[in-house]
């Protein structure tokens, strides 16, 4: 196992970086999308419940099925992987963003309005910062989840460590195939840990001391 890793250290590092980069970029994209959508819907109970349903139902779609469906119209490579990972990543973030925004105490929103902040300013300066820890928690959940999904996305030649699992599978029984799969699996778990730490750290940096628990 150690030999295997030693021999291919550069390649593993590169794939890990690709995996990580895919997940992080998609998370950023997903956060932007989810927060935008949440900001549009959270004031209306009807839209909020629609958003919640979308997020709940969306999560039931098997990632492998979704990738399969994307190959037909989009083909192979980076694009389907980005779409799948972003899609799944945005669901928990959306749910948390809605929860976070509607969880801001009405008294705080009222006092923001009461001192003359416009609706938009209230959203940007008051509601989003206060909802941020909840949103960030959604990002954390998403990060854990899409780490695994990104591995399946290698089926459509998406970037990352999934390639190790699939090539292990295609060489099953041959030498180093087990090592290849282990590398993929452990690599993903390690990246998940790492990203989790990063997000927690990001949370520390971006959460004002006043709303840290």
């Amino acid at each position: 196992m150690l030999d295997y890793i030693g021999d291919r250290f550069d390649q593993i590092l590169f794939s890990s970086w690709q995996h990580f980069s895919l997940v992080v970029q998609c998370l950023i994209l997903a956060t932007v999308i989810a927060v935008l959508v949440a900001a549009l819907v959270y004031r209306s109970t009807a839209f909020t419940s629609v958003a919640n349903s979308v997020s709940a139902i969306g999560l039931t779609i098997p990632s492998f099925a979704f990738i399969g469906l994307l190959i037909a119209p989009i083909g192979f490579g980076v694009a389907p992987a980005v779409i799948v990972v972003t899609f799944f990543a945005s669901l928990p973030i959306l749910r948390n963003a809605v929860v976070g925004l509607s969880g801001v105490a009405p008294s705080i929103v009222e006092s923001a309005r009461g001192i003359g902040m416009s609706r938009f300013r209230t959203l940007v300066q008051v509601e989003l910062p206060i909802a941020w820890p909840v949103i960030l928690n959604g990002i954390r959940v998403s990060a854990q989840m899409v780490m695994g999904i990104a591995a399946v996305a290698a089926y459509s030649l998406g970037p990352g460590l999934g390639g190790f699992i699939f090539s292990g599978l295609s060489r099953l029984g041959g030498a180093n195939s087990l090592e290849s799969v282990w590398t993929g699996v452990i690599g993903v778990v390690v990246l998940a840990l790492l990203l989790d730490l990063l997000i927690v750290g990001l949370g520390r940096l971006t959460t004002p001391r006043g709303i840290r628990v």
Partner: protein
Amino acid sequence: GCGLQPATSYVPDVGPGSITPIDGLDGADLTVTSKNYTEQLILGKIAVIAASAAGFAVTDLSNVPGSQPARELILSGQADILWEYTGTAWLTYLGQTETISNQQEQWQAVYDIDIENGVTWGAPAPMNNTYAMAVRSEAVTELGGITSMSQLATLPVEERTFCVEAEFNSRPDGLNPMLEHYGLARGTADGVPDGNVGIYDTGAIYSATDTGACNFGEVFTTDGRIDALDLAVLEDDLGFFPAYNVAPVFFTESLKEYPQLEDIFAQISPSLTDAVLRDLNRKVDVDGQEPAEVAFEWMKSEGFISDPE
């Protein structure tokens, strides 16, 4: 975009050998594809390395699951080069039913039709990677010393068990026509019932066959694991499978733009013999080396390329 590349992508720095950079390319893009089993991965890397040595900015889109998707990439021009097998194209893509026994003529026939499809076949290699049915050698005697496919019909129904990949399971040159050719009906109680067919990923069949998950595994004859796992290959005594010579296939428009490609690959094809491929495959599957590494070393030893400065 944003620095992301397809999985298992590999584009090395290469020094020139007998392949030298084409003048005035100025880093033109070229996309190489391959299917997702060992031999194709090695061939794919060979194409990547060759194109890279010729001065292209290569996108490595190898390891595509299945023949059809790879073919699709070439037909649509999303990829420019693919190593393809004449028999596969003839029966599966082009829908022909009668095979041509002469390998060169078969290549010509495919070339002639495919040129109409915007796809140009380059010079074929001598190697012929055909399908075969393999048995773990311990079981040969248990199965009455079976050596050829026509003996399948003599086995009791419950011994007629097969491990195949999803593709072979449905191909026109695949399991069902093969069984039919040898007088067995798929999906019937006295032929080969569906329960007797297990479906595996391409690479998983070898160890499945070896561990006895089934008696007969669908294998590729150039695969290194046949020897390594000591599998016995049944003779295609009634000649069902056609010739599957590999040849570089180009997206015609790209080839017109860079006609030099044809010559570059014409240098490589002749060196690809059954023995070479079996050796290269073995290095990957048995010795556990990386396809990219194996391809690079072989290209270098053949003098096509050199180490980068």
